[in-house]
């Protein structure tokens, strides 16, 4: 919750800068690997949590309202303005989608951590799947180029019904959240399982052991996903 409060303030700041008339163009900030950024965010959130003490709930609600006010004031022609998000330069519109992702994933995590059945709301699967490539670009464990590319096809089941193509070249990858075609491995799974595994909330090993994914083609490639995209 402290992380969500902290980042609501950060997003409000990013939007304010993006919309400022006198904002000077600045070079894109260096993008650190996700594993480094996530460790830093966790430390910052812990420090903020300690500082807030009993004020956490108030701080969360205040920051969330400030960010909503900021989004409410964005004019139609301003949504494409660039903002300097730590993952790279993103549009203000993308920040809105990323906030949905943050609230969804961390919301799921909080409910899950207190031992209650947690579900990502059906209506948010599409936004989460569409923004996942941003996260994956930060967590990809680059290796030497492969002699032959590896092609995955993820078949996401209702309520989303989507084909996602992931191609790994070793030193890079490409992902298309609206993919198609043949693949070395076809993984069929619920969109929630897909999202939670790729965001590191559950491991691919757990998913495979639980039989929560159907795999056709090369079975070994499914287990390799954890190596290509290690959890942050």
């Amino acid at each position, binding site marked *: *919750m402290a992380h*969500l409060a902290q980042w609501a303030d950060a997003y409000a700041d990013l939007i304010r800068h993006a919309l400022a008339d006198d904002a000077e163009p600045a070079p894109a900030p260096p993008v650190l690997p996700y594993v480094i950024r996530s460790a830093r965010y966790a430390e910052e959130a812990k420090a903020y949590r300690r500082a*807030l*003490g*009993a*004020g*956490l*709930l108030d701080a*969360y*609600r205040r920051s*969330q309202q400030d*960010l*909503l006010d900021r*989004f*409410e004031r*964005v004019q139609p022609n301003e*949504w494409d303005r660039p903002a300097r998000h730590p993952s790279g330069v993103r549009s203000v*519109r993308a920040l*809105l989608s990323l*906030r*949905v992702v943050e*609230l*969804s994933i*961390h*919301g799921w995590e*909080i*409910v*899950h*951590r*207190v*031992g209650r*059945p*947690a*579900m990502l*709301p*059906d*209506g*948010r699967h*599409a*936004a989460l799947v569409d923004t996942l490539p941003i996260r994956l670009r930060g967590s990809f464990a680059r290796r030497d180029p492969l002699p032959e590319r590896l092609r995955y096809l993820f*078949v996401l*089941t*209702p*309520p989303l019904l989507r084909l996602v193509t992931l191609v790994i070249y070793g030193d890079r990858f490409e992902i298309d959240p609206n993919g198609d075609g043949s693949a070395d491995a*076809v993984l*069929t*799974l*619920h969109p*929630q*399982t897909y999202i*939670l595994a790729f965001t590191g909330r*559950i491991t691919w090993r*757990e998913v495979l052991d*639980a*039989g*929560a*994914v*159907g*795999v*056709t083609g090369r079975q070994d490639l499914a287990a390799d996903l954890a190596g290509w995209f290690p959890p942050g």
Partner: protein
Amino acid sequence: MSVRSEVEVVRAAGARLGDELATLMPSNGTCRVPAASGPSARSWRTWPSGRTPTPT
């Protein structure tokens, strides 16, 4: 999803989390986590149909 709808998602999801936090956190700022929670009590296998998806 339209921008307006997405702002409403942020509003609703944010409010829900605030309510969640309010139930977990008494006035002294310490989170109450049920004793049964933790890795052994976790169940992430909660997909709506309750069954393993079948490859197509």
